[in-house]
């Protein structure tokens, strides 16, 4: 028996690799879901902000991340974008990170055009693209969006876009939503859009950076927040979609469970084989 456990401890780690690959791939391909996902108050607040806006009002979405944070922030921005489109909100899109602009395009192709084919560019949504300037850009936009962005991402003059005729300054937006992987991102939007012009700010960030926003949430400067893939999954639950974050969350849960099981087996084998025998 002891021999069995000693053998267990020396198991070829490639079996462990295989188990991990199978669990993740399997849960992505299957339809298992965990029914209960605790909705945190922060995500609920973000949802309520968007849900409470009268239909037809304008919101600004800012994609403030680069491809490196895509696995976490893409599902998160998709979930909120879907919600806003369903609520018939008009969306002005932009980004503060030059490397993130292709991600706006990707989201338009994969979420807006595919799932909401009747939404019209120019009247339902507009992509302004990227401009440098960060906080100065935000202040300029508060004076006049035309001064900041004379034309949209596709070089169409703003005056020929019906949405932009109604949304002339940042203050015409009822909320700012930022998907933020760092600076410039949410903190800058809080400092400028909320502090200066009292436009409610909400959005999402990576799981690792979520704790640094707790002070802003407590003080009410930030109107809710989604942290990482879990936040996105919660939002998807609220919206009632089973998107990539929810699917990913199942994979995430099972992978975590697998690791815990490995720790348990490893420890059982370790104690059963007599501690210390494994030393090389």
């Amino acid at each position, binding site marked *: 028996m002891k021999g069995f456990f000693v053998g267990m401890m020396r198991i070829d780690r490639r079996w462990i690799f295989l188990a991990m690959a199978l669990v993740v791939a399997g849960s992505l391909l299957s339809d298992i879901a*965990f029914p*209960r996902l605790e909705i945190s108050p922060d995500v609920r607040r973000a949802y309520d902000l968007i849900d409470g806006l009268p239909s037809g009002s304008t919101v600004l979405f800012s994609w403030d991340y680069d491809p490196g944070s895509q696995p976490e922030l893409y599902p998160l921005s998709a979930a909120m974008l879907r919600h806003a489109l369903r609520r018939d909100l008009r969306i002005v899109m932009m980004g503060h990170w030059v490397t993130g602009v292709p991600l706006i395009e990707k989201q338009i192709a994969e979420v807006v055009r595919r799932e909401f084919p009747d939404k019209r560019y120019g009247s339902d949504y507009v992509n302004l693209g990227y401009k440098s300037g960060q906080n100065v850009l935000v202040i300029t936009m508060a004076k006049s969006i035309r001064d900041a962005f004379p034309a949209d991402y596709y070089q169409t003059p703003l005056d020929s876009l019906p949405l932009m005729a109604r949304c002339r300054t940042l203050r015409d937006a009822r909320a700012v939503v930022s998907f933020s992987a760092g600076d410039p991102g949410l903190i800058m939007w809080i400092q400028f859009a909320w502090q200066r012009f009292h436009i409610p700010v909400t959005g999402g960030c990576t799981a690792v950076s979520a704790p640094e926003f707790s002070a802003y949430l407590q003080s009410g400067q930030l109107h809710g927040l989604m942290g990482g893939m*879990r936040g996105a*999954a919660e939002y998807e639950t609220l919206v009632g979609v089973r998107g990539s974050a929810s699917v990913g969350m199942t994979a995430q849960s099972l992978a975590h469970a697998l*690791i*815990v099981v490995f*720790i348990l087996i490893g420890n059982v084998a370790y104690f059963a084989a007599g501690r210390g025998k494994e030393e090389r």
Partner: protein
Amino acid sequence: MKKTVPLIITFLAGLYMIVAYFVPHPAVANSAQQMQGWEIIIVAFTLVLGIGNLVQVHYGKVRGRRPGWFHSAALLACLAVMAAIGTVWGVAEGTVYYWLYDNVMAPLSAAMFSLLAFFIASAAYRAFRARNKEATLLLLAAVVIMIGRVPLGPWLWAKLPWVGGHWPHALDQLTQWVMDVPNTAGQRGIKIGAALGAVSMALRMLLGIERSYLTTGGGS
């Protein structure tokens, strides 16, 4: 000339950075910022050292037809192609350089990064053992966070007899407490200690007490 001047350069550059932290006046702030720009320029030049070394090592292998020379040749080819097309035709979106970055370098980087998930599993299996009290604590904290932060945790917790019904949020609260209290305390202790160590090391360098970076023989 060989040792004293570099020591003085180190001292003055470091001291100026410290002074600039306290002086907001543009006369100081702007020049300090300029100097940080200089550093970026110098570091860009040093890449030549690295590329020179890389070419030396691998060209040697290819010329001597040593084992693995074929791989070295591939390395040199990739290096030359990427550097040349990027330098000549630019690095913006839409160039071949960008395409190679997007379809070769980025997937390789993402794949290498995601290997971690596998290695975490194997490390969990073979190394996270409850050898003693300390290791047991590490294990428990890790398991609480891992289970508590994914939907599986609350789902399992709710299924537990009695506790699940009486304290439905206990797992969430425990996770949060571990993060907020003992984890924060431990992290802070490490941070304060390590920062003081780093400051002491930095001051030793500025003062020329630790000067191993100038140790080449011959010269004073």
